[in-house]
């Protein structure tokens, strides 16, 4: 029977010759990722073992990854105490893939997973974070789960009662025009299908545009698949996946590629030609409230943010720095930059990118989730408006329900930093 890429992955993970949509399966997990909410996973995990007489030991410490990123360094004693609890647990259970608050190996979970080669094509990856969809960029079936569900994974090594999801095929053709990026593509897609349009479904990306896209760009379009409700986004592994894992993540072993069958059955096929795509903006307060930049040009901004698991990679910082070079951030607007990992921070430092950004007036913040979800730094004041390369603009998202958040690409963010209002980066050019 012809299968989509996720059907193939789930067949493999359940030891079956095939699976089909709506089958209930229990796939074996290859990577189980958590961040600070690991503290809650630990509570639930210990509760599972209560009264069983069994020793609470995780099923396989080599498959668990824990990364501190949401509140680093701790903003309160409560967070610090939770982080301490996780450190103790990690040491006790022998979990080696632990990324503490460190300049040599820290960063945002969705950057660390690819950066360290923890994810491979064909893997089943679960994470206690909704943006775990990101890792579909490497050809894995990767999805977000809650803390209690993760406790169950830690105990059993499988995810219980997963229904095989239907797949939407998104076929993308054409070359992205100058100053138009994978972020604009995914915002356009979310605007088209709506915030619930892909609920309980997988988005499988295909087409020449995707084949020519770097892993960095694929991470963007898979990261935000969840904003259309998707269980996961996925780019079936290819030459670029192998290149990234070998050259950038330093993977030594052979990498097996899993591709969908040519005659696989898709619930829906969406075709997009990006040749004439323009920069896209998601307007407050839903991610599917997407408009071409021209419709919102001139909106006055108090805060501009470049960073997060969506757009805090080297190419993002590079793109922004090119536009900003020789210019200043407008007075009355503050610009915050959160690289997605310390490795990216270091590379951007070496290339002089961070220096250029600082010269322009941007403030560089340590890698982490930062102000994206309003838990750490960069909260908005009452009535303030932000433009961010992050992934969500829900009411209250940036720490204040009386603030507004617009979402965009790093190029739009940089061009807008110079003017202090939403600006089309194609006007004026470099």
């Amino acid at each position, binding site marked *: 029977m012809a299968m989509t890429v996720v059907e193939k992955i789930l067949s493999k993970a359940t030891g079956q010759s095939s699976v089909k949509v709506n089958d209930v399966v229990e796939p074996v997990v290859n990577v189980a990722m958590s961040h600070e909410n690991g503290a*809650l996973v630990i509570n639930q995990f210990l509760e599972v073992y209560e009264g069983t007489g069994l020793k609470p030991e995780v099923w396989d410490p080599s498959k668990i990854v824990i990364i501190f990123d949401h509140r680093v360094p701790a903003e309160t004693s409560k967070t610090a105490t939770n982080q301490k609890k996780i450190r103790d647990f990690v040491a006790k259970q022998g979990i080696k893939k632990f990324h503490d608050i460190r300049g040599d190996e820290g960063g945002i979970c969705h950057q660390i997973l690819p950066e360290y080669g923890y994810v491979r094509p064909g893997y089943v990856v679960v994470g206690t974070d909704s943006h775990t969809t990101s890792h579909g960029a490497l050809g894995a079936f990767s999805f977000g789960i809650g803390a*209690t*569900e993760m406790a169950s994974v830690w105990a059993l090594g499988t995810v*219980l009662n997963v229904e095989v999801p239907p797949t939407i095929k998104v076929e993308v053709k054409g070359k992205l025009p100058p100053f138009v990026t994978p972020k604009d593509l995914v915002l356009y897609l979310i605007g088209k299908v709506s915030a*619930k349009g892909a609920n309980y479904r997988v988005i499988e990306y295909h087409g020449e545009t995707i084949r020519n896209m770097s892993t960095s760009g694929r991470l963007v379009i898979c990261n935000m698949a969840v904003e259309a409700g998707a*269980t996961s986004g996925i780019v079936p592994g290819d030459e670029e996946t192998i290149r990234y894992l070998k050259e950038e993540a330093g993977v030594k072993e052979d990498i097996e590629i899993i591709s969908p069958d040519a005659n696989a059955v898709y619930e829906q096929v969406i075709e997009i030609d990006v040749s004439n795509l323009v920069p896209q903006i998601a307007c407050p307060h839903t991610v599917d409230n997407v408009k071409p930049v021209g419709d919102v040009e001139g909106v006055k901004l108090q805060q501009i943010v470049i960073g997060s698991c969506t757009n805090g990679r080297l190419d993002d910082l590079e793109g922004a720095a090119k536009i900003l070079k020789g210019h200043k951030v407008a007075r009355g607007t503050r610009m915050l930059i959160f690289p997605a990992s310390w490795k990216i921070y270091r590379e951007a430092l070496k290339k002089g990118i961070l220096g250029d950004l600082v010269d322009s007036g941007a403030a560089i913040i340590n890698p982490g989730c930062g102000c994206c979800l309003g*838990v750490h730094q960069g909260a908005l004041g009452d009535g303030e408006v932000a433009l961010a390369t992050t992934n969500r603009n829900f009411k209250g998202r940036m720490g204040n329900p009386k603030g507004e958040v617009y979402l965009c690409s790093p190029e739009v963010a940089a061009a807008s930093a110079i003017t202090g209002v939403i600006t089309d980066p194609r006007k004026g050019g470099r």
Partner: protein
Amino acid sequence: MSKVVFKLEDDISTDVIYPGRFMATVLPTETPQFAFADYTEFNSKLKNKEIPPGSVLIAGNNFGCGSSREQATSTLKGHELTVVAKSFARIFLQNSINLGLKTVICPGIEGEVGDEIEVTHDKVINKTSGKSSDIIPLPSARQAIIDAGGLIAYTRKRLIEKHKK
């Protein structure tokens, strides 16, 4: 019979149910105080125990979209609310089943704050308006977790079976 105590539109995110700035609080015993924290009036009523357990919150499509934070479920479970929505986002629905928050998928739900609602096995009946709407049953795979008393109990059962082998 229960009263509708709160009505919400489509696409209510977990940031609205449980704002990110309270995420350092994780324990189900502590999260209920921050339920809908930015809706100060409703939040005060919840905190002051003016909302009886079993009260109904009705919402549009895609309730619980966004972050996977389980606090958004435990905060509502702590007040023993029932959520009747036209549809739910995936992770939120799964978390609710895992923790035992009562969720009802009812695409035709209509009602206003103050309406009397009865939830039967296959229908939501609005006694005030007289309108009744069909419930979409939860997938059978999910029902097994509910029947076991939540995911912790279900996993415990599976763990014991695994160790017997």
